[in-house]
């Protein structure tokens, strides 16, 4: 049984935010919510690094551990999903998650958070696969269509990998063996010289 994962190759990410845009468009994510975002370290300085972050679909998910209504569940291929019918918008998962993955639309009255929304690994939710209700609540279910999350599929530099954890880890290892430590981008050493610590 495959254990699906995300892997972001920080040496390849160019902070184009196409993954963020693709996710929002594909899943029709509500206003104020970004299921995925790009974090840049040392922005604007030589040796800056960007990494695309979303729900990491943890094996022992802290969001699920703190949920008072137990609305989270993990699928057989290790995708952490939740039921918006059960969610009460308490916000515990937001505080528990080390990646800031759970988000709230905040469209209700009196400052209520509303139903939590997060990356579903393009795997929908508890409703019937590929049903309109599932799409309306959770976005598209590309996994059921035999595809992978769109953020990874349309990454222009192939920085964001998704799929079977063992296969993408092997792909990453091959890259590292081929290019060595640091960026494999052409001209990197010309631009930043040998002295740049990466």
């Amino acid at each position, binding site marked *: 049984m495959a254990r699906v994962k995300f892997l972001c190759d920080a040496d390849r990410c160019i902070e184009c935010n196409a993954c963020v845009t693709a996710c929002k468009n594909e899943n029709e994510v509500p206003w104020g919510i970004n299921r995925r975002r790009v974090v840049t370290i040392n922005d604007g300085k030589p040796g800056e690094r960007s990494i695309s972050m979303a729900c990491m679909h943890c094996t022992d998910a802290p969001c699920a551990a703190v949920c008072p209504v137990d609305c989270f569940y993990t699928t057989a291929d290790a995708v952490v999903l939740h039921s918006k019918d059960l969610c009460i918008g308490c916000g515990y998962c937001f505080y528990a998650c080390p990646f800031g993955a759970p988000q709230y639309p905040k469209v209700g009255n009196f400052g209520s958070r509303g139903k939590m929304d997060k990356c579903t690994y393009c795997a929908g939710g*508890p409703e019937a696969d590929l049903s309109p209700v599932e799409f309306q609540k959770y976005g598209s279910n590309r996994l059921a269509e035999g595809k992978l999350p769109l953020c990874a599929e349309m990454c222009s530099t192939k920085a964001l990998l998704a*799929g079977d954890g063992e296969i993408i880890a092997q792909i990453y290892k091959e890259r590292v063996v081929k290019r060595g430590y640091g960026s494999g981008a052409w001209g990197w050493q010309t631009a930043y010289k040998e002295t740049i610590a990466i």
Partner: protein
Amino acid sequence: MKPTSMSDAEETTMSQTTKGAAFDRRSFFKALGAGATVAATPALVTPAQAVDPGKEETKARYQESEHVKNFYRTNRY
């Protein structure tokens, strides 16, 4: 004793009616409270159960289709 005036008669009747109504209302709420306690008892003793998402929801959706294999192939270079 026969009431001496119309207003006295009305007052007596109203007083009796009020007393009767008060008694009935209190009895009603007492009975309601007892009923609610009886109804709530099984709910209190029943242990809480976590939601079971079921096999259909938790089944693996990942497939190593041609589409996915192409993704792996193009990511190798």
